[in-house]
């Protein structure tokens, strides 16, 4: 197990470029959680996220010869984001009442990992809070959602977010600012879900 994870991405990429499927699959395993989570948060539906993630890895495999270097992870996340966008468009087209069904699914989405971790009440609280956040995220415009997810959920720096989204630093800044502004409102509207907000609420007064 240690072996495939030791070499840096660059090494695995060059091996993959030479035709090693094993090397590529090592990259897949290394990044699949990040890719899947990005898709999941962007789409709000686990099945859609699964499809998008698989498509993303296939596209990455296909496009590998054109990978020019730099951060493989950023490149991969960019592909995943594009795949998610496509998937979203596809699903919207499929069902006329897309937005409605999407919202229904959303509310259930964060409960997705039912056996994720044993934590009883704390987990439940977090799930509720996560559900509210996820719901709010899905109401953001795609670009803002993408920026917030990459920055806050995936922990990318602004310049990395810019690289992944193919936009300027200034654009990233304003998208994050606007996206978070809306999320903040949601959090303040549901203070019971977030014990942190109680503190904030008190502070506000």
């Amino acid at each position, binding site marked *: 197990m240690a072996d495939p994870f030791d070499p840096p991405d660059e090494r695995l990429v060059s091996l993959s470029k030479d035709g090693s499927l094993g090397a590529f699959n090592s990259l897949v395993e290394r990044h699949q959680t990040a890719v899947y989570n990005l898709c999941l948060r962007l789409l709000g539906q686990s099945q859609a996220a699964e499809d998008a993630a698989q498509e993303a890895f296939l596209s990455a495999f*296909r496009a590998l010869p054109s990978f020019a270097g730099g951060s493989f992870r950023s490149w991969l996340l960019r592909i995943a984001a594009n795949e998610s966008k496509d998937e979203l468009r596809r699903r919207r087209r499929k069902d006329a009442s897309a937005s409605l069904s999407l919202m229904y699914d959303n509310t259930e989405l964060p409960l997705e990992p039912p056996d994720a971790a044993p934590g009883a009440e704390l987990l439940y609280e977090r799930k509720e809070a996560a559900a509210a956040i996820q719901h709010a995220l899905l109401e953001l415009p795609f670009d803002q959602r993408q920026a917030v997810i990459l920055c806050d959920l995936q922990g990318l720096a602004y310049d990395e977010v810019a690289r992944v989204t193919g936009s300027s630093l200034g654009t990233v800044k304003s998208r994050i600012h606007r996206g978070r502004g809306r999320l903040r409102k949601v959090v303040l509207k549901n203070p019971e879900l977030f014990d942190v907000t109680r503190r904030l609420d008190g502070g506000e007064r």
Partner: protein
Amino acid sequence: MLMAIPWSVRPHGRWRKQLDAYVDGELTPPEHARFDAHVASCARCARQVEDARALNAILRSMPEVPAPRSFRLTPEMANQARAASAPVARPSRVPLFVAQLATGVAVAALATVFAFDRLSSGSSSNGTLAAPRAASAPQSQAASGAAGAADSGGTKQALEAPSSTPADTPTPSPTPGVASPSAIGVTGAGLPSATPTTPLSPTPVAPATGPGPSATGESSPPAVPTAPPGAGTPPTPSPHEEAPFGPSGGNGSTTPLVPGLAQTPLAPATGTTSSGRSDWFVPTEAGLAGLAAIALITTIVLARRRRRN
């Protein structure tokens, strides 16, 4: 305390805008220091910073969901992807081919329109000439001995014109225009556009047009008034030069000519031809420009698509 007053009075939009970048540590060091100083003195902004930090904490605490399954590619998937990537490569070639084809078609269309333009301008000028000149035609045509043959019927000329025009039209315009005294004013305008045509048949053609009745279709009406050598000049430039020619030539003698075709044989001919043709030239030129634009856009769009692939 003195410092606190301006801070609190100051609109906080600017700070609010920087808030998230500040919390994320994405401000430049000087910006960050300034923000720090502000937060230290502004309770409102300090509260907002707390808010933002709390939200970040909430967002960061969003559980990372483990992948429901492995997304490893099976060898079959890899092969399929490789096979699929071949067609992916193909489309990039197709657009190029299509782009070339589209460009070719557009160029062909341009050429056709251009040819048509010449023909139609020839016939149209004849037609326009014929209508107003119906009465005057006999006089002016009779005057022009050489042209007389072609003049027999204004409409007939139009029919003849097409065959003769392609060869004749370009030739007369350049050489005679420059040489003829009446055209002097015109030469300046005529030269730039005329230049391309001149090389085709400079001197040899020019003489032919003057004497040759065949050329008359276009040139005969104007040729009559001026002179066998110079006569060719005014009409000939029309196919290409009409627009520039019209105004410049008009200054000298054309303006009055239009209405008074019958009155002055020399002047009317040039005036009418130029005015009539320039009217025709606008739409045809617009058409040319439109086609060129379409060709350009098609090429650009396809090139972009290709790049994307």
